[in-house]
């Protein structure tokens, strides 16, 4: 028998997913977020000193996912603060710069740390950014190919570690949306944090979703619960 078509006109379930961006300084984490959220690009962006919070919804055929994005500072001196941001994340974007070999080494480090410290169910995407600086096969004679990390190298690493893999350009927008859509569709239903209760004042004045849970840093984990 053919399958009976369920009624898809019913309201789609909406779920919020905490996403954290990690990677060496100046690989383009904030630019990827800006491209995804505002479809915009800024040259010579200031380095992120801290962690910026933004939200963006993504519509899939059967559900809507609200990304709660934490764009973290890439500078080495802030590395010790990263666990606060990835600890309760359901998904992480580990970004490197296709033109900078050290950034892939740093990406490997982040992937290892996520495997060791983050939720075991975390969905990780490896993203090689600055595809616009790669002039493959000299297509454009005037620009040199600044690529230092081959697609194969990135893909091989992603396959070994079970990561989603993309090469993007935040500048041109190439593949940026695909990364987030792929992540959204990879989020298992049960990991998704269905929001309950009424929005309003939590704790202090108007505080709520943007807060980072510091309590769970010191030992007792809230038994798999999500604090965002």
């Amino acid at each position, binding site marked *: *028998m053919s399958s009976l078509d369920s009624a898809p006109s019913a309201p789609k379930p909406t779920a919020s997913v905490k996403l954290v961006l990690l990677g060496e300084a100046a690989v383009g984490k904030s630019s990827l977020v800006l491209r995804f959220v505002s479809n915009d690009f800024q040259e010579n962006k200031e380095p992120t000193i*801290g962690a*910026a919070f933004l939200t963006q919804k993504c519509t899939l055929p059967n559900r809507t996912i609200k990304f709660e994005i934490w764009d973290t500072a890439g500078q080495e*001196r802030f590395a010790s603060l990263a666990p606060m941001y990835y600890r309760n994340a359901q998904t992480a974007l580990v970004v490197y710069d296709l033109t900078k070999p050290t950034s892939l080494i740093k990406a490997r480090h982040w992937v290892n740390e996520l495997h060791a410290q983050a939720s075991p169910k975390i969905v990780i995407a490896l993203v090689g950014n600055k595809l616009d600086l790669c002039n493959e096969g000299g297509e454009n004679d005037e620009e040199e190919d600044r690529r230092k990390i081959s697609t194969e190298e990135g893909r091989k690493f992603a396959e070994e570690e079970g990561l989603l893999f993309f090469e993007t350009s935040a500048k041109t927008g190439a593949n940026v949306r695909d990364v987030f859509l792929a992540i959204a569709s990879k989020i298992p239903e049960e990991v998704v944090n269905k*929001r309950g209760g*009424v*929005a309003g004042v939590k704790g*202090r004045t108007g*505080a*709520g979703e943007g807060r980072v849970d510091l309590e769970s840093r010191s030992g007792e984990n809230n038994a798999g619960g999500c604090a965002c």
Partner: protein
Amino acid sequence: MTSLVLSTSTHTLTFHASSCADPGGTIDTPFYILEPKATAANVSPTGSPVLPAATDLTVHDSISIDEDMDSDRMTLKLQDHDIGSIPKSDVTYLAEFVLAWRSALAALEEQVQVNQISSFEDPLSSDYVTTRLIQERDSFIEEKTVQIRLITWNLHGEVIGEDLRPLLFGSSVLSDSGELQDLGIFFVALQEADPLTPTTLSANQVTIARWANQVLECLGESYILSASSELLGMVLLMFTHKKLASQITQLEISSAGTGVLGYWGNKGAVCIRFMLGESDLAGIAGVEIAVANMHLSSGIAPQAVERRRWEMSELDKRLKLPVFNGKLFRKQRNGGKNRKELLYQNGDLLDELDERVLDASSEDDMVAAATDAVEVKKFKENGMAKEYEIPAILIVDGSDKAATISTTTSTTATTAATINTDHVGPEKDINSIVFILGDLNYRLAMDRSDISQLVAKKDYDALLFWDQLRNEMKEESVLIGFQEGPISFQPTYKYDIGTSVFDTSEKARVPAFTDRILYTTYPSLAQLDYETFMHYISSDHKPVAATFELRTMLVDADKRAQIVKRLLHDLDARENESRPKVEVEKTDLLCPDMTVLSTVHQTAKLKNCGNTQVAWEIEIIDGSLIQVGTPEGVLPPGATQTVRVSFKVPPNVTHISEIFILRIINRQDYFISITGNVLPSCFGASLADMIRKPSGARHGFLAPQTGPQLNIPREIWKCVDFLSTRITREIFRRPGDETVGELVRNWLDNGDDFDSIVLDSLAKDGNKGTHSVAEQFIQLLELVNGGVIPEKVYDIITQGNDGVQLIFEAMPRVNVNTLIYIASFLREVKRVVIDFDLILEIFDKVLVRIPKTGKNKSRQKKKRMEFLKGFIG
């Protein structure tokens, strides 16, 4: 800094008024913290008095000022409560104070509004999208024509190998160019889909699947099977175009058997009902549609008609049809007798029929049982005495549409598309359509030869005059409110299989319009055709089909998805734009040349550049040195906030690198780093290092070979030298002053001499100079790296009575010298201080390094004290 607390019915407002005599010398904007009542503390952090049960506050409750002529301060009042006082001299500060207070009150009022808005701005708990969708519904709701094709066929248990396309598409389904339309629903109703035997207990899924696949093959990839409902030989399949599938909701199927013993499924009905086009989100109600495939008991006898009435009454009860404009049967008949009673009156016959049906091996035999010859004869004698006179009024030409023609016997087959709505007017509040199709088994109550003549003349109206169903409907016994399109085809039963010839068997069954399609009226429903197909010869029935068009409001799913996507995007933009906009003046705080043990104060400036108030807080990372005065607050639009942190520089570090998080709630975490070098210091250095830096810790090491080495560190000598001339009874028993202490530490580390004039000038202020030096001296000894009396001699001191000599031999020379020097100083102290044991305890603590493994602490302490006492003499 003073703090004021105001309590309202919903919130607590803590107001921090910074004093104008700030250590930094600047005047800061006073700030406040607004907390919901549930979490608010009863007392302000600094312990300032809580305003007793302040009444509800509004923005109109502004501050008034009381000037006391005798005082240099003025008192601020709110609703006659004193809320604080400020110096009269500082008018600027007063202005700032009042301004900040007002903005606090405004924020208090705004807070309530913000909370209401926040639920609106959260799409996950609000109906923003829903509301907007309804506003924009006209752009995605369109009136569409849905085509509904219904087919009924009693298969006589035969496998159909014939091409189904002509049957499915008929005369009206395909467009002029031969295309299948987008918005179509097909219903295929089968009876006797499988050979029926008394051992058959359920519908044959293989047959059903074969039919579903056969039909889908004809309809193409754009159609799906939406539902199927089955009961033994009765099968009802629903096929829907994919574009329409999302418009079908609340699909339900039901079935009811009315056959043998009144319940068996050899007769009865199967039903599919659903909502078409219903959308709560778009605010359209949709149409409820029910399709029932019926297979009723056979037979021409009045008892068979009665039985079918009873079956209708059962189906009315058991089939769960929606509320519709009409009824399956009329309840009270025959002088108020219940139909069931009537049934039991004829119970003998029915029981006999049921028995024979159970024994029967084929439907043919069942039909034979029901149409017992005797009964038929009796029926003809009683009921058909008037013979077959056809009323003149019905003898009309095909082209003549006489207005007098009654709706139920409507004729003139050629204009089939007209709808009769005059019979039962639609009731406005009923929004449903019921289709009934199937082998209803009503017969033509006339002789076969007469039927043949009329069929030959194609005078179907004449035939229909004797149609039991038409007559039952005319009498309003069954299917009240139902319509049927004009019949322009010959009886569909019973044919010799493989031919289009009426039954030539011995039984010579009387032909009849057993296979019918009826419907309840609906304003925008029109029937396009009603037809049979004589070339299908696999069964003893011909299939019957009808096409309807229904105009209804439908949601264009693609368009709506686009709008939803846009709305969600708008919402994201709004959400992200409504996030606080702030500027942090500096995130890298540089502190050059910090000195050990001093307290470093740092500030970060936060400006609210947005137009909503900003909630901020400071998060201190575990293990950080940083202390924060006020960890959180609220900043009104345009205002600036100075965030203060402090930390005490620990000994033995050369560099400080600390990070704390300044969190703008819902927007951004700023990592504020504090870095800087720490100047070298004697505090925390070993005695050996001290003597190698005779000019003070900050002046670097003396090369080992140059110059004579000191016997004792100059820092210790300086302290003792200063203190030995200023011994009082209170020496080492009073706290020093922090600022003077820092001065003393700087002298020591810079190699400067103590400035006795400065220190002694503080003598009248509780001897602060001396006590500060004494305090730093103790601290210096306490922090000596390795201790003055090192760990390695501890056992000798506490265990044996081996004497001082052995202990000295085990200690570095500088330690011995230092100890002897301190002992001689303590001898002086002992002369002045009455309770010397207390002093001794202090020095025991700072001089002796105790191994961690030490046991029997009180005995050891006694031994240590004995040693020190003996040594001091």
